[in-house]
């Protein structure tokens, strides 16, 4: 069936319609974006700890630079890394092969999605080089600040002057990216519903496929109003309408509502795909069936619906009606329950299992531990509206969302990388450097994010370029905390190079995988050759079992591939 000849570099990276190639293109583009976002983080963390120092590779950081760096760090990491890696890359690589089909339902649409994504990346990078400098209004882009020029006091003279600003470009970039992800989401949804292998009923799908699909649909339903809102903000910037101008009957709070109506479900859009990877990896490495498959699924759907009703907990002190805040506080606290159930089900999966502490499993356990113990539990502080009065917009919030996003997005992605690398390249990642990478990341992530909790409790507000002017923030030991955080962050960033080098080196020169199914996994992607051919399968598989039949009592070996009778 596989009659396709090998294509050259240009074809593979620019014109291929194969889902794996497109996934790889997404991945390289995102690696580029992450390097930029990571570099920004390095620069402003250095500036915070050593305010007078000329940061190596950047120079002296002014207030203007600082605002631009934190804003774009946030935007890149949230919009391009998290959404891109977990929806676009994971969806492209995994969905078709895990459901046992050759490609996406609409390969051309898939290609177009990637081109839109690339345009968005180009627009985003172009925005750094505008005449007035990069976008410096915070990644939440609250108007009226994002409508004007952040107080540089250089009034706009013409339409072109307004158009060629970072504000316009960032908004356009985000719009393009959303369109790209929407097209991708439609593609995933249709592919999953329509192209599953024979016998692959909905409840025989691996969790990863489920989660990416739920996330895509959730994304689609939450992003609509923000697209309309972004269109209105673009008009405000470029034409001079007054949608968010309080003096003309507009309302700055409207943007906050639109943004967080998207922004909070987005957190779950980001969280769900890693939960899917974790389900697959944990079940495989514990050699036990996933505990409560349907239960997890139901809880996820409940959480997805609830996530549309909690957005105003980002706005407790933003001037909304305090009585409304109470309602949102209740929903916010309630949403912790389904996630507690999911995490407990994962723990029940590893409970009394013969765990294999392989690299993906280490990342998975690290992810569950940090996400639950610190990321999840600190959410309770912020969900309780009263404490949020104090903690809102302090470093406490920064630490909290780094502890929720880093373990899921980064640890989850790494778990997936170390797990599926063997499949898509046919090579193995170097184990020793993999372990070094894991422990450095685990230790120094904590070293970076935990001091931020203490700083936040001491009253350190976010997004301040220079804390030296606040006496109460310069008392011992707060500057020390800042230095610990910075040094850890720098080591954390440097240790990611280990992975990058390991990744590309192993791809070229790594050890060939010993068998097609090195993890002895059940799911369909392991039942074809590694790397899979164009079209994925030599003969289309037929599915007889669920994806998590490990240690089935009737079987000799401890796993039971889905396509084995």
């Amino acid at each position, binding site marked *: 069936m596989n009659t396709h000849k090998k294509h050259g570099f240009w074809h593979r990276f620019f014109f291929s319609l194969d889902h794996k190639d497109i996934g790889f293109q997404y991945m390289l583009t995102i690696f580029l974006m992450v390097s930029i976002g990571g570099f920004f983080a390095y620069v402003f963390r250095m500036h915070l700890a050593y305010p007078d120092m000329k940061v190596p590779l950047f120079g002296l950081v002014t207030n203007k630079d600082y605002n631009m760096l934190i804003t774009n760090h946030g935007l890149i990491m949230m919009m391009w890394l998290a959404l891109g890696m977990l929806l676009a890359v994971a969806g492209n690589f995994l969905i078709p092969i895990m459901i046992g089909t050759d490609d996406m339902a609409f390969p051309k*649409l898939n290609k177009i999605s990637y081109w839109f994504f690339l345009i968005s990346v180009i627009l985003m990078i172009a925005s750094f080089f505008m005449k007035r400098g990069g976008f410096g209004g915070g990644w939440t882009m609250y108007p009226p600040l994002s409508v004007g020029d952040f107080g540089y006091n250089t009034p706009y003279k013409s339409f072109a002057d307004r158009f060629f600003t970072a504000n316009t470009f960032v908004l356009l970039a985000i719009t393009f990216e959303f369109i790209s992800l929407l097209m991708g989401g439609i593609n995933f949804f249709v592919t999953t519903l*329509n192209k599953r292998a024979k016998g692959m009923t909905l409840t025989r799908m691996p969790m990863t496929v489920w989660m990416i699909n739920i996330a895509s649909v959730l994304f689609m339903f939450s992003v609509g*109003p923000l697209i309309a809102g972004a269109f*209105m903000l673009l008009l405000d910037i470029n034409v001079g309408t*007054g949608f968010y101008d309080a003096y003309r009957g507009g309302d700055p709070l409207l943007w906050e509502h639109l943004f967080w109506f998207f922004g909070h479900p987005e957190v779950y859009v980001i969280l769900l795909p890693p939960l899917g990877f974790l389900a697959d990896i944990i079940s495989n490495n514990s050699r036990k069936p996933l505990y409560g498959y349907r239960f997890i699924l139901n809880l996820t759907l409940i959480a997805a619906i609830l996530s549309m009703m909690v957005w105003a907990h980002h706005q407790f002190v933003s001037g909304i009606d305090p009585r409304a805040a109470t309602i949102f506080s209740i929903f916010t606290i309630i949403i912790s329950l389904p996630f507690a159930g999911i995490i407990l089900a994962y723990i029940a999966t590893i409970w009394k299992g013969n765990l294999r502490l392989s690299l993906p499993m280490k990342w998975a356990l690290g992810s569950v531990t940090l996400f639950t113990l610190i990321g999840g539990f600190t959410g309770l502080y912020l969900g309780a509206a009263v404490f949020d009065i104090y903690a809102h917009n302090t470093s406490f919030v920064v630490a909290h969302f780094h502890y929720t996003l880093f373990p899921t997005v980064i640890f989850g992605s790494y778990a997936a990388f170390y797990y599926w690398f063997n499949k898509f390249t046919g090579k193995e990642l170097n184990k020793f450097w993999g372990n070094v990478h894991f422990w450095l990341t685990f230790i120094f992530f904590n070293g970076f994010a935990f001091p931020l909790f203490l700083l936040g409790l001491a009253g350190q507000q976010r997004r301040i370029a220079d804390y030296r002017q606040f006496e109460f923030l310069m008392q011992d030991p707060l500057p020390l905390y800042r230095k610990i955080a910075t040094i850890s962050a720098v080591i954390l960033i440097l240790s990611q190079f280990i992975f990058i080098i390991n990744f590309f080196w192993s791809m070229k020169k790594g050890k060939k995988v010993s068998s097609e199914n090195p993890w002895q996994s059940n799911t369909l992607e392991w039942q074809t050759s590694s790397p899979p051919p164009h079209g994925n399968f030599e003969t*289309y598989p037929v599915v007889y079992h669920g994806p998590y039949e490990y240690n089935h009592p009737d079987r000799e070996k401890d796993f039971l591939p889905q396509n084995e009778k």
Partner: protein
Amino acid sequence: MNTSIKSWRNIPQARLAVWTLIAGEFVVFGGLIVMYILNRLKYESWGEMAQHTNVIAGTINTLVLLTSSYFVVKAHEAAIHKNKEKVKMWIWFTIICALLFLGIKSYEYTHEIMHGFTLPGKHLLAEGKHVETMYWSFYYTMTGLHGLHVIGGALALFFVMRHATKTGKDYHRLEAAGLYWHMVDIIWIFLFPLIYLIH
């Protein structure tokens, strides 16, 4: 690669995708309409502004779009029988309706801009009518965004029709494009009373 195995499920893929797209579009317009209604309830003076819209042109446009939906249904019927000539004819009728709609829309826009009701509303601002400019901002944003969808839908119909009539395959895509066209129509049915009729 064996392309004959497109799906084991036999759900028409294009239709499923377009339904998903329609759901997404409804959220976009839904957000916009909710914002408009909330503001409308807040500011009574918007009713006054709504009287400056051209209700007759709006009504004609509604009829034009409704007729075009009928043409799309006819085109779909012809597509089921793979009747090339009829498909061509009905789709062209639909596209003419779309152009007529856009023509009337631009006539309206010109008329309103000549009376000083522009998108940023500089004239109104000069008169000290701050809140009222927002009505026109919403008017242009909502109808403009809808207008873009009319153009998009018409283009989609055109290309799908050309592909189908040239190659004689993929007639089922006409149904998908037609579904999208109905959505454009329905959104207008929502916009028309909200913008033109409530004073």
